[in-house]
Each structure stands twice: as C-alpha cells, then as structure tokens.
C-alpha cells in the first residue's frame, strides 16, 4: 500500500496514458452516431456558431463593399449594359423554357426527385486542418438523415455523417473516409472517387481495366454507389498517373465546389 501511495503520480500517468491511447484507438475510424451529450453540446453551440458566422459575414460583406468602392461607378455602367443584354437573353430563355417543358411532357420525362431539397447554411467547419467536415444549421428536425447527399449548383459537396436535432455534420468528398462511384462524362467509364484528406484534392481510381480518361475530363456522379444521384458534377481531372507499366492508373481530380469557402448547400432526400 505504501509502495502505491509513494508512486501514485507515476501510476496515474501510466493509467492516463493507457486511457488516452484507448480513446484514440476507439475514435480512430469516426463514429456515425452522436452520443446524447455530443448532440446536446452541438445543438447548444449552434446559435453561437450561427451568430459568429453572421457577424463575420456582415463584416466580410462591408469590407468588400469598401474595398470595391472605387470600382462601383464603372461597375454600375457595366451592369446597366448587362441588364439590357440579360433582358434580351431572358426573353429568349423563356421561349426555350416553354419549348423544353413541352418536349419533356411529350417524352413523359419525370423529375428524378419529387421531394424538394432542403437548403442549409454552413455554421461551422472542422477546427482542425487534418479533417474535412462542415456543420450545417439543419438536422433531424428538418428531416435530414445520415447518408443524405449534400450538393450545390456547382457540384457535390459530401454527405450527412451525423445529425443532431438542429445541426448536421457533413463529411466532405475530400475527407479521407469518403469514397463514391462516379463516371467519366466523355467516355462513360465507371470510376471510384476517393477523398485524400489533403484539402481540395480527390483521387480517382478506375473500376474497369482499360479506362478512357484524359486530363480535363469532367467527372460526374453515378447512382451505382447508391450515395449520389446520377449526373451531378464532381470535378475535373487535373493529373493522371498511369503507374509502372501503365497498370495502376490513378488520377487527381479538382472538385468544382470550393469546399473551403462554400456557404450554402442543398440536401437531397
């Protein structure tokens, strides 16, 4: 007993070290379900995140206005000209829209999703540079579930990983846990797109032996993986490594969405 009391700092350190290593091991793969406490903490902090983001957005907006003031007059003249041009274009587009609607009807075309997407604002990002995730201000109360696809008009962003009542964590396509089926738009070749955990860079691996792929090719989602609907833009091939003897092809894809700066997303149900 005396031996233990004399050495308690060493013993406590050893026990603490084992506990920490155990914690790291248990949480190494990420957990798709939040604990009760985690959910409550995140929901509790959501208003603070939102408020800080709003304040930052406000200052960012006005800083931009002040910075660009000298260009405003010139821009104004350009915009007036642009409005005229757009009005003409709009008239042409309205005509095309009518024609498109008529043709769709004729073909018996149905919209893939009958449920309207949920719009969400990004209220926080990963505080760490080593993991890619964002937190949005919509959760299970808005019908979101883990696995739902998160997109913008420019392309795919990621998918819901965990959801609390009023917030949800989105695993970005650049996260190293992310992988989904896609296709080369030009050739239709099926590929796998993986996150690298290295900022805005994706890794592409072919799913067939001889894949037709070139630098500049557009990559779009494929519904085969059951994660994203067909045909959503993913990114552009920026580099191809054919490996030794051309056997192990991998390509680097630059995503269309600026994952570090995206502010508003749509969640597809």
């Amino acid at each position: 007993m005396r031996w233990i009391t004399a050495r308690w700092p060493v013993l406590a350190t050893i026990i603490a070290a084992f506990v920490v290593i155990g914690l790291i091991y248990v949480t190494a793969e990420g957990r798709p379900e939040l604990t009760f406490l985690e959910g409550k903490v995140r929901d509790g902090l959501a208003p603070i995140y939102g408020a800080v983001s709003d304040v930052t957005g406000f200052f960012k907006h006005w800083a931009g206005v002040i910075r660009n003031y000298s260009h405003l007059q010139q821009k104004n003249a350009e915009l007036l000209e642009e409005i005229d041009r757009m009005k003409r274009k709009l008239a042409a587009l309205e005509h095309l829209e009518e024609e498109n609607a008529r043709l769709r009807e004729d073909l018996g075309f149905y919209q893939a999703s009958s449920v309207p997407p949920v719009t969400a604002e990004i209220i926080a990002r990963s505080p760490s540079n080593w993991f890619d995730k964002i937190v949005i201000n919509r959760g299970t109360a808005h019908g979101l579930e883990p696995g739902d696809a998160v997109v913008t008009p420019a392309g795919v962003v990621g998918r819901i990983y965990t959801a609390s009542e009023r917030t949800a964590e989105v695993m970005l396509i650049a996260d190293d846990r992310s992988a989904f089926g896609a296709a080369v738009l030009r050739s239709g070749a099926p590929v796998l797109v993986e996150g690298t955990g290295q900022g805005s860079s994706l890794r592409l691996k072919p799913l067939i032996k001889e894949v037709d792929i070139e630098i500049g090719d557009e990559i779009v989602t494929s519904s085969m993986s059951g994660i994203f609907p067909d045909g959503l833009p993913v990114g552009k091939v920026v580099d191809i490594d054919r490996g030794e003897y051309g056997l192990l092809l991998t390509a680097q894809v630059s995503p269309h969405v600026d994952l570090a700066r995206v502010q508003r997303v749509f969640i597809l149900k």
Partner: protein
Amino acid sequence: MKRLAIVAVMIAAVILQSTICSFVCWKGLKPDLVTVIVILTGLIHGLVPGCVMGIAGGFILDYFTGRLLGAGALSKMAIGALSGWIAPKIFGDHLLVPPTSVLVGTWLEQTIYLLLVNAFGRGLPVIRSLWTIVLPVGLLNVIFVFPIYYTLLALERIRSQGGTREDG
C-alpha cells in the same frame, strides 16, 4: 474558477477556428489558435501550465473534430511542456522569441500529430503533408502571435494585480 477559465478560453479559440478563421483561410488551411495559446502559455508561465493548457486545449479540439480523441491532447501537451521547459533557457525580451517559438513549435506539434494519426491507421502521405499542411499552418500561426501574446500578458497582469490587492 481558473480551470473553468482555461476551458472557456479554449472553447472560444475552437469556435473562432471553426467560424471566423475559415474566412481567412489560406489554401484551404486555417490557423491553429489553440496551439498558439498553448505555446505562448508555456513560454510565459512555464512547464506545468503549458502542459495543462495543452491537454485541455487538445482534448477540446479533438472533441469538436470528432475523431482520434486524445491525439491532439498528446501532441499539444508535448509542445506545451516543451515550450515551458525551454522558456527559462531562451526566454528574453527579444521581440523575435514568441513568433519563432510559435513557428517552430507549431511545426513540431503538427508533425507529432501527423505521426500519431498515421500510427492509428490514417495513412496520410508524410512528406506531402509536411509541405501542404504543417509548413503553411506554422506560417499562418505566426500572424496571430502578437495579439494573443499581449492578451495573455495583459490577463496575467490583471491576475497579479488582483492578487496583490487581495493580499494587501
């Protein structure tokens, strides 16, 4: 009270990192304010406070990140202890000491973290990560050294004045 203050400061730093810092990110990277606070606390207050700040800040950051709970605590504890241990040997009033310590300290801390997460199966390319994450984050952190350094000194001054008044 002191413990609560440490936790509150670290949570505030993590919230800033998750929100405002994302707007000033450079090449998709954001500064690691928690590491800056830990290193400067070690420099100003010594080994044990640096260590405690490292553990507290690291755990809170890990908790908000959601993965590898404890890895950040270990790496930040190590760097807090190191800066506290080395401070009496190097620390003078020279203006370059805090930024240099934060620059080198951040590089060391991020490298320890990288090696630690790889040891638990993350599989990040080490050399590439050193270039694309570790080096730039060190440079980004230097920008925030002086505001945080003088805030910590001011807080210390307020604390010691309060203590003197109570004693008197």
